[in-house]
């Protein structure tokens, strides 16, 4: 462990610092677009803020957290030092350079294109180059995860790769596939346009390439939370993982089905027809399977723990669980948010039904709840769980950790549930201010204010989170060595090669991607869309 504490902490502190700034911006944005802040802020300030908020939450918090956590898992789950540590530090600094570039262009108003940066609306080229640097750093991380797993397998022939690392590498492999769409769009279309080397851009192709990345990236963000569900939560609850095999299968299903579904973000787009849209809706139904499997497997694992603690009857095990432990509490809260967020997702992917909700506040509600809620609350739980190892200190009390988790849950529910309702009323997205004098819009005002209340609770929770971690650095108590990873009810002695590596699955990904994205992309290569003129955002 000793060789990676500083590496992990560096990544985590960058992630959480970006998170805190983004939370502040988010609260400001919510105030400005509510009736209470109707005369505050200009559109220029608002969209600068939204761009910063989105980039920080979607690209910085996530990528740095996932890299840091990956290094931690590679060392602790495999019980060996991290290979290529110098490369890891190099990648960290490249990513920092990227963040600095992107942030500089955002803050100077040259990149108010939001974190989705759909062309032909174009920002300063240095914004995109900043993002590319972060992606390149993450690719180095991917390679190091693969190298670490391969090295362990050579030293442990025939043994199953520990599940936490298997899942981490599945995520790394998936990320390599995921970033292809974004990389091609940026390197061949957007950056040349931003530099002025080309004056027009094929928008149909750009949107299609970005959609390749846009859905799979959320599974990149989600998998660490699921790693906690499968490998940490059963231990924290005092039980066993119900099935190691199902864990492996779950992460394989995510690898395979996260990618060929991106077009469900384009269901309302005119550049694709019903056929490809329906195929991708079908595949989206498949990607719901690993989550549905997880709900069952983890609930069963918690049932084991609850019954071991004396819980009786059909549901007695629930109350018997050690809810005072942050990892257990976070899981319960995460599952509740997953229920609501998953429900929103089912509606979004409903083919024609997407027309009811596309680009309304329903969508905003969905991804804040499912990512900001169920996934990020597990990021908190992971941080709390491993911070004692990283710092060598122990918490004086867990009460403020639990308070922070509850505030996050309450804030997220209060913020997002009204947004679902408002979305059905037709409230649309990415708006700096609403005309509350309009009779249709006036009725939304009270709900927007309720939602703002939720956002303020979230801000308090975000501050408390950072405060809790800070406090641990200064804590007097020394950390007690405590095992981290769960055992399965039946720890596997051997697993088939297909559940211990990714060769076969990469082939399947390729086949599915050709099926789902082959023609949609090839059509633009064969006959480019009528080109649109590049528009600078200022």
């Amino acid at each position, binding site marked *: *462990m*000793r*060789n990676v504490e500083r590496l992990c902490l560096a990544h985590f502190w960058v992630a959480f610092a970006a998170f805190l700034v983004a939370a502040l911006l988010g609260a400001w944005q919510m105030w400005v677009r509510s009736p209470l802040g109707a005369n505050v802020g200009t559109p220029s300030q608002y969209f600068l803020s939204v761009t910063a908020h989105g980039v920080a939450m979607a690209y910085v918090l996530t990528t740095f957290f996932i890299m840091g956590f990956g290094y931690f898992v590679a*060392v*602790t*789950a495999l*019980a*060996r*030092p991290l290979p290529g540590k110098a490369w890891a530090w190099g990648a960290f600094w490249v990513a920092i350079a990227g963040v600095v570039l992107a942030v500089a262009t955002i803050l100077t108003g040259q990149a108010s294109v939001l974190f989705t940066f759909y062309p032909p609306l174009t920002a300063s080229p240095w914004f995109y180059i900043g993002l590319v640097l972060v992606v390149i750093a993450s690719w180095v991380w991917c390679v190091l995860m693969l190298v670490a797993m391969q090295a362990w397998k050579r030293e442990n022939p025939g043994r199953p790769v*520990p599940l*936490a690392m298997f899942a981490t590498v599945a995520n790394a492999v998936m990320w390599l596939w995921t970033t292809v769409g974004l990389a091609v769009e940026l390197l061949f279309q957007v950056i040349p346009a931003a530099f002025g080397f080309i004056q027009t851009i094929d928008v149909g192709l750009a949107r299609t390439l970005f959609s390749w990345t846009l859905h799979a990236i959320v599974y990149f963000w989600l998998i660490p939370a699921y790693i906690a569900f499968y490998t940490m939560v059963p*231990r924290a609850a*005092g*039980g*066993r993982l*119900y099935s190691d095999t199902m864990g492996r299968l779950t992460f394989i299903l995510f690898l395979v089905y996260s990618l060929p579904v991106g077009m469900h973000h384009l269901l309302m787009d005119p550049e694709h027809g019903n056929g490809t849209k329906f195929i991708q809706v079908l595949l989206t139904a498949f990607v719901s399977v690993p989550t*549905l499997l997880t*709900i*069952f497997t983890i*609930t*069963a694992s*918690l*049932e*084991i723990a*609850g*019954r*071991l603690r004396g819980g009786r*009857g*059909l*549901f007695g*095990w*629930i109350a018997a669980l050690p809810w005072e432990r942050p990892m257990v509490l976070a899981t319960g809260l995460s599952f509740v948010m997953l*229920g609501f967020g*998953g*429900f929103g997702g*089912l*509606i979004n992917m*409903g083919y*024609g*039904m997407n*027309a*009811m909700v596309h680009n309304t506040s329903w969508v905003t509600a969905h991804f804040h709840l499912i990512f900001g809620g169920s996934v990020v609350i597990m990021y908190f739980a992971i941080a709390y769980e491993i911070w004692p190892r990283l710092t060598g200190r122990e918490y004086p009390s867990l009460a403020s950790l639990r308070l922070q988790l509850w505030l996050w849950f309450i804030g997220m529910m209060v913020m997002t549930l009204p947004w679902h309702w408002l979305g*059905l009323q037709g409230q649309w997205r990415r708006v700096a201010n609403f005309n509350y004098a309009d009779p249709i819009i006036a009725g939304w005002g009270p709900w927007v204010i309720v939602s703002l209340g939720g956002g303020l609770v979230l801000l308090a929770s975000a501050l408390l989170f950072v405060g809790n971690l800070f406090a641990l650095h200064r804590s007097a108590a020394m950390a007690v*060595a*405590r*095992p*981290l*990873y*769960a*055992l399965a*009810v039946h*720890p596997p002695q051997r697993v088939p090669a297909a559940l211990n590596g990714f060769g076969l699955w990469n082939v399947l990904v390729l086949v599915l991607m050709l099926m789902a994205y082959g023609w949609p992309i090839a059509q633009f290569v064969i006959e480019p869309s009528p080109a649109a003129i590049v528009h600078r955002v200022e």
Partner: protein
Amino acid sequence: MHPDEPSAADSPFEVADEVDEVALAAVMRHVPLGAGVLAGAAVALLVLGYLLIYLLVFLPRGTVG
């Protein structure tokens, strides 16, 4: 400086957990009934909610194509 050696406490295989195998076997006779009912009820509610929104909110707003 400490050597770059992870401690034995970091290895998931060497460290047994506190779970008593006999108690586990007894408990496994009931699992996953509670989980099945809880998770099943949750998913059933999801599907029901989906149907309700489809029939009561989406379809009444008119066709789309």
